[in-house]
């Protein structure tokens, strides 16, 4: 029992630190990547080639004056960024990071918890996440912040529907399990789910962009129209938490996409490689290599997110709604119908 608690504590702490470190360096990489796309050099002063820039940013955020407007609802004002940060971090608990490790005859999952409704848990937590933005924007008692919050909530509601339908199609085609671990293991042999669900992945990816409030769907914080959107009134580390949680969201949604559609910690010819290296099942090295593969995929997705952000202008509000309801929703329904038909003719579903 003690060993179990220690193992879970190490997993929680490790994943938490991984999220924070990944998000911190995602902020640096975002600025570097933007600079490369714009023929610039990006931050290069703090540390060796700018490697300590996230530390400098963090110190700056903490040192800034903190202002809580006296017309705001103080407790809700503090709750907003906390809730946003918490929901961003707890989504990481169902992601399987690597293959289970066998130490001393005991199997340790490299996942905080393998709940059998993992996909539904992800959707649920993602929709709680919008409360962080809503509460923050509403309690600020500021028109711009409220507009940002309203936009965020309507955007989330609109894009969760095609996202959920795309996930249903994925679950049907991948064998009916809602556990992320089983979805990954289903992709161990054979093809990754992207091969069976290309349209579903495209819909899921677009919705993930919208759910994480990344450009071109960053209407809630739209600085050209709404000053700062929902975080207009926030300053110091509360603002920092909002900005930081966005990067954690980006990291986790990249991890989820890699897990659901790209085989997670599996990669092509993995078994051949392990055989060649003479690694038995449950070896630590298999986990390390698998973790490396997953992180490579996550890095690819994070780069894609940034690439899109520094290419596309922001959508107009009616375009956003048209895209969500008139294009993505019919497309995701079409995808679902095709998936069900294909699975029916393959004999995987019986009426």
């Amino acid at each position: 029992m003690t060993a179990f608690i220690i193992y879970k504590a190490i997993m929680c702490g490790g994943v938490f630190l991984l999220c924070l470190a990944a998000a911190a360096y995602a902020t640096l990489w975002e600025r570097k990547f933007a600079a490369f796309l714009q023929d610039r050099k990006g931050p290069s002063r703090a540390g060796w080639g700018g490697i300590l820039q996230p530390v400098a940013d963090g110190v700056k955020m903490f040192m800034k004056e903190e202002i809580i407007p006296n017309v705001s609802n103080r407790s809700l004002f503090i709750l907003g960024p906390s809730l946003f940060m918490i929901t961003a971090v707890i989504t990481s608990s169902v992601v399987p990071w690597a293959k289970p490790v066998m130490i001393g005859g005991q199997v340790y999952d490299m996942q905080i918890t393998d709940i059998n409704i993992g996909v539904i848990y992800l959707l649920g937590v993602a929709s709680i996440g919008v409360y962080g933005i809503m509460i923050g924007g509403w309690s600020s008692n500021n028109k711009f912040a409220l507009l940002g919050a309203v936009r965020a909530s309507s955007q989330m509601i609109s894009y969760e529907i095609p996202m959920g339908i795309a996930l249903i199609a994925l679950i049907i085609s991948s064998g009916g399990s809602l556990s992320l671990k089983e979805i990954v293991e289903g992709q161990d042999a054979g093809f990754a789910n992207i091969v069976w669900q290309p349209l579903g992945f495209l819909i899921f990816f677009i919705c993930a962009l919208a759910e994480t409030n990344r450009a071109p769907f960053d209407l809630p914080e739209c600085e050209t129209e709404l000053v700062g959107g929902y975080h207009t009134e926030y300053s110091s580390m509360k603002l920092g938490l909002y900005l930081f949680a966005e990067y954690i969201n980006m990291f986790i949604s990249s991890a989820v996409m890699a897990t659901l559609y790209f085989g997670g910690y599996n990669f092509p010819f993995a078994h051949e490689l392990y055989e060649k290296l003479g690694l038995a099942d449950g070896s630590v090295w298999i986990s390390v290599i698998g973790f490396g593969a997953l992180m490579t995929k996550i890095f690819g997705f994070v780069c894609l997110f940034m690439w899109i952000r520094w290419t596309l202008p922001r959508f107009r509000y009616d375009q956003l709604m048209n895209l969500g309801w008139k294009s993505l929703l019919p497309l995701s329904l079409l995808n679902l119908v095709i998936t069900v038909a294909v699975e029916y003719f393959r004999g995987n579903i019986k009426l």
Partner: protein
Amino acid sequence: MQLTNRKKEVSFKEQSFAERIYLPAILKGMVITASHLFKKSPTINYPDVKRPIAPVYRGQHVLKRDDAGAERCTSCGMCAVACPAEAITMTSGERKKGEEHLYREEKYAATYEINMLRCIFCGLCEEACPKEAIFLTDRLVDVEFERNDFVYGKDKLVEKMNERIDVTKRQTSAVLEFKKTLGLKHNELFEAQKLNQGKHH
């Protein structure tokens, strides 16, 4: 009359499905931005790397000392008169006994100020100087927080004994030849000074 060949017909037809889901246009844009990943950044890492400057670049001034270390400036005021921006002011002092190693001639500049915000770095002070005392160098004027800090006094202008500044680049043969042109007042003085030096030795 056709002015350019870039005329484009604008139509208000319904968007096609490909246009409505934006994807082809998005991919086109992303290829354009990705192509910039492989382009060389034109940025120069300024404080570490400096842009090459012309050999006759006109930057911050220096008040030269002679080889023995005495200040060359005699506070004649030619530079202040020549200055189109009226950036130079000075007051004169008389050399006391025992100060021969400090000042080259009997009269010297007790204070000498250049307002770097007024200065246009034209180099006319240098041209006007009969004593080869003021030169423009390839140094840049520092950044300051207060306007007053841009008024450089002798503490910043006179060259330090242990870090002499090479101005031979500014003393081109053409400049030296110009300074020897007869009929210019300062060149008479220049010649007289050479005669004086001859007497001393």
